């Protein structure tokens, strides 16, 4: 996997000067467009985020109450939302692959599967704990601030701090 990516994306590996293993932990910095865009092209992602934000609020998946119901098996709602989202996603990605659908700029869509490492277990358990406590994953943190729960700004800053501490301890943690 790594060699293949290095071959297809040689320039990026050099530019960022970060070892590939670090970057392949995330999907970031991998899906690279060769087309140079001006900043306003990014506004379409603002619109996509806006629609996603409306969905998060209207589906009430950002509610601490819904998360507590989920972890107490008191409601099907969260399972229904995540389950049907995953099924829709599987069908969509399958269709994209099958018909080799391209982006609106005519570039082929490539997906970079995440590699397994033990971080998915340890980090997953820790994030699960944070999810149960705050009732929010990262997307809902932004959405909650938008609903007027301004104190969640502190939670978001704390999440940024958590990410930073992970980054600084990364070499010492089991992966």
């Amino acid at each position, binding site marked *: 996997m790594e060699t293949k990516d290095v071959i297809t994306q040689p320039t990026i590996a050099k530019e960022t000067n970060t070892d590939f293993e670090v970057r392949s932990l995330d999907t970031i910095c991998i899906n690279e467009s060769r087309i140079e865009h001006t900043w306003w092209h990014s506004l379409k992602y603002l619109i996509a985020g806006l629609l996603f934000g409306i969905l998060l609020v209207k589906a009430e998946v950002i509610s601490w109450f819904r998360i507590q119901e989920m972890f107490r098996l008191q409601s099907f709602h969260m399972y229904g939302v995540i389950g049907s989202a995953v099924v829709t996603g*599987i069908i969509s990605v399958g269709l994209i692959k099958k018909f080799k659908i391209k982006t609106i700029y005519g570039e082929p869509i490539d997906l970079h599967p995440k590699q397994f490492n033990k971080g998915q277990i340890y980090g997953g358990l820790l994030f699960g704990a944070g999810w149960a406590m705050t009732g929010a994953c990262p997307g809902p943190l932004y959405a909650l601030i938008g609903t007027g729960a301004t104190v969640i700004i502190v939670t978001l800053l704390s999440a940024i701090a958590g990410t930073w501490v992970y980054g600084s301890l990364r070499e010492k943690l089991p992966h």
Partner: protein
Amino acid sequence: MQFLEWIKQPWPWYVAGPLIGLVVPLLLIMGNKSFGVSSSLRHICAACIPANIPFFKYNWRKETWNLFFVTGILLGAIIATQWLNSGKPIVVNPKLVNELQQYNIHNYSSIVPIDLFNWPALLTLRGFILLVGGGFLVGFGTRYAGGCTSGHAIMGLSNLQWPSLVATCCFMIGGFITANLILPAILHL
């Protein structure tokens, strides 16, 4: 105006879930972007406080789309709250209402438990652990796991990646243990 009344209600899972799933192909077709939110936290670190840490030394400017996306989430939430809101209290399972009563949580007027998450609560031990401690775990855990509910559970599973299934199962295990065994002790504080 029946439609407007209808969309002001909370949306059922079979409407909201598939629409959330469609964000995956939307971002891919828009510009080859893999759906994910927690990376934005890393980009913010890389942009503001890289501190010479290798994990934050990359060209975050190439990932600004993600920051536009999360800004959109915030704006979308404002729109949904201001104009697509029925103003009715949230309907919660009576068993949960019963349980939360003993922790002095009675306010269901918002989707956020106002008794728990407010500025003065930040100065209580309970509020501090939940808001600051919980937030820290969300940021630390998602980056350690390499993704969150969107990046692993939705995007990763959509692409049939088994590491994402492992991560998603661990999210759930961590949540079940915390919500049922640890959270009651925190809420009692």
